[in-house]
């Protein structure tokens, strides 16, 4: 049975070159994805006109759809600030996820040789899906977290964030107000812990899904002889296409919701207080 060993994660391409130990198979795929995105974006934005050419039209369709989705969640004011990160996250994760489904990714590499160009099992794959490497998913989530902090502080300020997190809601006064305030302080502490855990949950969710999908495909490829190895993974490719899209949506949507939650001004509460 073929399955991707965790040891195969982040293997350096050039093991003998000490200063290039960071240049792993997943970094290579991330660079290829970077190149693909650069090529497509250049193709789409070259000779732009009001009557779009087909590449421009395709890219505009994606960007407009994403922007409208982001705007519907974070609002008109935050959308221009938040969209570049969220749009990049979605496009990069989606392409990275789907790149892992290309033939050869995870199946071409080094292992115990059984012939001139064949191995019994690939121990050191040449290419690995970038999002099947925790370094990448953690990098994405940490970057998103830092941008989230920046957007939140620039929008509501440090004090605004503290009030938003720990401040009591409901406008109760007296003893009940004090009790509720204590509860909200406790809830705020839990909220802060959950905020700091967001990069971990985001990164492990994406990594786990893509890594598991990759393992499913490898396992299915090793089942049922030669014909079985072709037919068995076939339905799972469609599932992984869906999972790849779904995970890109989940990651981006969660980041969007985090931004929306922390940058929304609690005007309703203030109004109640004024009344």
């Amino acid at each position: 049975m073929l399955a991707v060993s965790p040891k195969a994660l982040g293997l350096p391409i050039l093991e003998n070159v000490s200063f290039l130990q960071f240049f792993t198979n997943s970094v290579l795929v991330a660079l290829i994805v970077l190149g693909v995105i650069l090529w497509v974006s250049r193709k789409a934005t070259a000779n732009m006109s009001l009557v779009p050419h087909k590449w421009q039209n395709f890219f505009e369709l994606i960007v407009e759809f994403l922007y409208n989705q982001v705007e519907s969640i974070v609002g008109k004011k935050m959308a221009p600030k938040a969209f570049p990160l969220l749009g990049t996250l979605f496009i990069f994760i989606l392409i990275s996820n789907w790149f892992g489904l290309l033939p050869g990714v995870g199946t071409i590499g080094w292992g115990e040789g059984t012939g001139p160009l064949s191995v019994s099992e690939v121990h050191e794959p040449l290419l690995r899906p970038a999002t099947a490497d925790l370094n990448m998913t953690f990098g994405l989530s940490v970057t998103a977290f830092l941008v989230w902090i920046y957007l939140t502080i620039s929008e509501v300020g440090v004090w605004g964030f503290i009030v938003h997190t720990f401040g009591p809601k409901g406008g109760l006064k007296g003893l009940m107000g004090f009790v509720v305030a204590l509860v909200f302080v406790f809830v705020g502490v839990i909220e802060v812990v959950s905020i700091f855990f967001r990069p971990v949950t985001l990164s492990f969710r994406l990594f786990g899904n893509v890594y598991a999908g990759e393992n499913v495909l490898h396992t299915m490829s090793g089942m049922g002889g030669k014909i079985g190895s072709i037919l068995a993974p076939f339905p799972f490719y469609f599932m992984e296409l869906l999972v790849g899209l779904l995970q890109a949506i989940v990651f981006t949507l969660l980041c969007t919701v985090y931004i929306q939650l922390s940058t929304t001004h609690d005007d309703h509460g203030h109004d109640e207080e004024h009344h």
Partner: protein
Amino acid sequence: MDQIAGIADQIATQFGLDWWKFIAQVIIFLAVYGILKAKAFGPILSMLEQRKQRIADGEAKLEKIAKDLADAETNAKSIIDKANSEADRLIKDAGESAKSLADKKQQDAIHEAGQIMAKAREAAQLEHEQLMSQLKREFGRMVADATSRVTGKVLSADDQARLSKETAAQVSA
């Protein structure tokens, strides 16, 4: 705390977390972010905004044209209505004026005809009187002449005048 750090370290090792690889991946992602932001999202969003503006302008122009057309139609209708009513008024005035003029002309013609008739009558009367006067004079002279011849006497001027006067008086009677 050390225990938590130990567990975290164990998880990181198990899942292949490494600072240099992590930094490399972050740099790649930031490069993608920079490229997309500068070369794709910026121009594309600007183009979308430009197109949206163009469509909004077009819609506004279309609306304005429709409004102008409706205004023009209303204007044209009111002008036509006004012209129609003016034309009706003019026709009515012209009719009235023509009728009044015709009446006036008829009155003038009747009056003029009356005057002409009166003048003709006066002229005829005058001519008649002149002829009568001439006839009386001539008749008086002929009577005086006949009297002179019958009587064989030369009549004086007074006699002649008296005879003429008496003759004229008798002729008039």
